[in-house]
Structure formats: C-alpha cells, structure tokens
C-alpha cells in the first residue's frame, strides 16, 4: 500500500470520508438554455477567496492609524515587492465581486429562484450582498485619502439623518462627532474582523441551503420538464460542473490580472480634515446611484426634508429586496408581474443614476 493510500485509509477509518462526501457527489446541476447564469454564484465565491488572500497580504504592511495609514499604503504601492499588484488585485477583485454579486442577485430574482421552498436561500444571499457592500464601504476609508475621507463623511452622515436614533448610529460608526483616526480604527476592525467572520458564516449558510434544496430551475423550464420527463437534463456537480466552473475562474483571474496591471488603483492625496472637498469628488461606482440621488433631491419635497425622504428610500429598497419572496406572495395573483416590474425599475434606476453620476462634473 502506498503512503498516500495509507494516510487516506487512516483518515477514512476515523471520519468515513465516503459518507461525508456523499451529498456533494450526489449534487447535480440542471442543464437548459439558461444554465450559464449558474456560474455567477461560484464566480462571486472565487472573488471572495481572492479578497481573503490579498487582504491577508495587505495586512502584513498596512497600519491602521490616521498618521500612518496613507503612508503605509504608499509604501505598499511603491516599495514592497509586487505591493502595487496585490493592492490593485484587491481593489479590482472587490469591484468585480460587487458586480458579480449584483448580477447573481438580479438573475436569481428575474428567474424567480426565490420561490418556495427557497426563500431562505434568497434571504441569506441578499444578506451576503449587504455584507459585500459593507466591505466596500469600510474598505475604501482604509487608505485615508481625500476621496475616502469625504465618502466616509457623507456615508456616515446619511444614517445620522434618521430621526431619533440617527445621531447615535453616526457616533457609533465614527467613534466620535467627526470622521477621525477613531473612525479609521473602527472601520479597520469592521473590515478585517467583523465583516469577514459574518460573511464567511453567511456564505456557508447560503451554500448549505443551496445544497439542501438543490439548484432551482426557471419555472418555464420546470413546466417543460414536467410535461415530458425525458427532457430533463442534469450533470453531476463533481466533477462535471466544477471543472467548467474552474475554467470560468481562470478566465476571471485573467481579466482580474489584466485590469490590475493596466489600470492599477490610484492612491490620490492624503485626507485633510480641514480642507475643502475637491471638485469632481465621487464615491465608488456601486454607490454612484445613491450619490446622484442625494445630489438631485431638492432640499424640500412637499414640506418634508428632501434628504430625509431619499434616505428613507435607501432603507426601504434593501428591506423590500430582502423580503422579496414574501412581497410577491402578498401581492397575490399579480405578484409575479409587479415584482418583475419593480426589479426592472430598480435595475434601470441603478444603471441610469450611476451613468448620470459618472458623467456629472
């Protein structure tokens, strides 16, 4: 018996690997004309692992204090071997992760994969999206540059406008009345400790639920399959789908490296709490729609505070997204149509406002 076989035997005797891996080996992936959308979840997971790996590398040199953060990122970019690459990959992979998590969410929503019994799969996925946005928001303060400073100032002021509890939330986020080194410490802890723990837990729950319920098939395909059983087509997850997924991951890695090398992330100027916000200041692209909304909303709408209404909207939309399966059910027979229309409106709103925000001077 070879050495590896011995080790395998030894482990198998104690853990019964066959029993452990049985559910995974049994897992299948439905094959139909919309199957390519199934790659987006795995793609998001790939970017997430890239984030963990590059994040750990950045931690070796990054210093989380107002006096040193900017300089340490400068050092990573200019002096540490391949530091620019690691940082660029971290930044680009973050962007692509946000993109793929949004694409995954909207594809799942439009194909109504959230319908019974998969409501909890959907909700855990939406929570992952919120966590990903939290990563983005907490992450881009860390270089302590001008853009990060004002984005954080606005981003923490927004919840501060909520009546009664707003100020307490703002104080909690900032660690004081203003955005200072105390805010940086908090965001750092959030970004490298709290959010990763929550995200890893939530992703595992999401995957376990997908494993439990199997992969959803669009209703139209399901009907066709039900009418003639022979039309049903599935492939094994291991190794058939997984190998196809690996090809996708290699492709994603190539895109990531090309972007990171050709368009390395910039550092900008160091944050100065007493300097004016520079003209043309904008947040990351995934917050552009909210940014543009805040710019366009008038100070008063029918006697109400305009910004307060906007901020209420920012709260209602994610809530509705989280509870989408129940919203659809509650709306009754027209639910499917209304939810689709709502999703289409939401998606177009995000795209149009982001484009306007991007082009705005």
């Amino acid at each position, binding site marked *: 018996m070879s050495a590896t076989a011995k080790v395998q035997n030894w482990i198998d005797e104690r853990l019964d690997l066959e029993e452990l891996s049985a559910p995974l080996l049994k897992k299948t992936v439905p094959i139909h004309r919309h199957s390519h959308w199934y790659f987006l979840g795995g793609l998001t997971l790939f970017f997430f692992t890239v984030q963990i790996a590059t994040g750990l590398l950045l931690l070796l040199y990054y210093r989380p204090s107002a006096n040193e953060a900017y300089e340490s990122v400068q050092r990573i970019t200019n002096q540490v071997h391949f530091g620019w690459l690691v940082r660029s990959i971290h930044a680009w992979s973050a962007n692509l992760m946000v993109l793929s998590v949004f694409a995954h969410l909207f594809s799942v929503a439009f194909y109504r994969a959230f319908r019974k019994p998969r409501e909890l799969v959907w909700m855990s996925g939406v929570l992952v999206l919120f966590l990903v946005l939290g990563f983005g928001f907490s992450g881009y303060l860390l270089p302590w540059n001008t853009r990060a400073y*004002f984005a954080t*100032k*606005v981003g923490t*002021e*927004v919840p501060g*406008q909520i009546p009664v509890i707003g100020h*307490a939330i703002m*104080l*909690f986020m*900032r*660690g*004081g*009345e*203003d955005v200072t080194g*105390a805010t940086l410490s908090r965001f750092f802890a959030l970004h490298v400790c709290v959010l990763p723990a929550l995200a890893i837990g939530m992703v595992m729950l999401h995957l376990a639920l997908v494993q439990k319920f199997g992969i959803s098939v669009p209703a139209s395909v399901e009907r066709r399959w039900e009418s003639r059983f022979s039309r049903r087509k599935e492939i094994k997850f291991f190794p058939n789908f997984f190998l196809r997924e690996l090809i996708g991951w290699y492709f994603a890695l190539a895109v990531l490296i090309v972007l990171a090398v050709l368009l390395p992330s910039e550092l900008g100027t160091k944050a100065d*709490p*007493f*300097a*004016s*916000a*520079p*003209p*043309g*200041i904008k947040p990351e692209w995934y917050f552009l729609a909210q*940014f543009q909304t*805040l*710019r366009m*909303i*008038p*100070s*008063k709408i029918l006697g109400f*505070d*305009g*910004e307060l209404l906007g901020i209420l909207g920012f709260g209602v939309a994610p809530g509705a997204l989280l509870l989408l399966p129940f919203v659809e059910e509650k709306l009754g027979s027209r639910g499917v149509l209304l939810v689709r229309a709502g999703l289409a409106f939401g998606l177009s709103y995000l795209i149009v406002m982001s484009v306007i925000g991007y082009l*705005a001077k």
Partner: protein
Amino acid sequence: MRLRTKRIYVFVKGEELLMALNDVLETGCPLERSAGEPLPRRSALRILVGSVLASLATMFYPIAKYIVPPQEAAADSGEALAGVAGELKPNTGKTFRFGTKPALLVRLTSGEYRSMSAVCTHLGCTVQYRSETEQVWCACHNGCYDLSGKNISGPPPRGLESYDVHVRGQEIYVTKKA
C-alpha cells in the same frame, strides 16, 4: 415591594435553593413539584433562568457602553486665528480650523472679510469659495450658498452658520456670533 420580599426569601432559603437547583439539574424535570420540598422546582428554575438573563445583561451593558465613544473635551475656545492680512487676495477664500470643525474665510471683491462654517448642512462635506461665481459651493452634492451663508441652490436644507471677523493688526480672528 414584592421583589424585596422575594429577595429576602431567597437569602434565607439559600441552601434550599441550591438543593432545588441541584434537583432541577439532576432530574432535568423542573415542572414537577415534589412533596416535602420547601422550594418548588418551578421557582428554582425561574431563579436559574432569571440569573442567567441578568448575568447576560450585566455582560452586555459594559459592551454597549464601551461601543459608545466618550465625549471629547470641547476644544472650542470660541475664537480662532483664520489667517493674516495680505494672505488672501480679493475674491478668494480659504478653510481654517475653528475648534474641531473646518471654517471658511472669504475676502470679497471689495476687500471686506466674511467667515462662516465650512461644514455643508446637507451631509457634512467641507465647502469652498468659488471666485468665478462668487459663491460658496460644496463639491460633494453641488450645494450653493451666498456670501452670507444662506443656502441658495442644491440639496442643502439650511444656511451655513456665519461668524464675526475681527482684524487685529496683522491677524484676522473669527468668533461665533453673540
């Protein structure tokens, strides 16, 4: 009053409580009242659950308090040095530190000085003076104020707090309006 009586009862019957709790833990059957026992198991269980909840609360209280940042001592003297004479040309402006917040000093075309808070009333970005429009402008969400600090366009809901400017020799001081 009831609470107080209960407390005394628990104190006096301390040993019996321990015995009852032990019973609960051993038998795992808290709801059965056994004859001859002075303290019923149901009460013992309530006290047990109550103390666990209380201990959790005492753990969370300091955590909650710890998370809320302590009040900083106000470094606000009510007056700040905004600049020196000749530093600003007419129709220009600069930001300076007033206490813990940024403030704006503007020299009008006439040569007169104006000062106001530089914290935009919309979402707290730091505003700047724009010579081409002779207005105060916030780059974050395109809010505009006139030279007295009044909000004139864009999202800001209120005007900027304006300050008094005092020129003493070569130095320009700013104070809050009385």
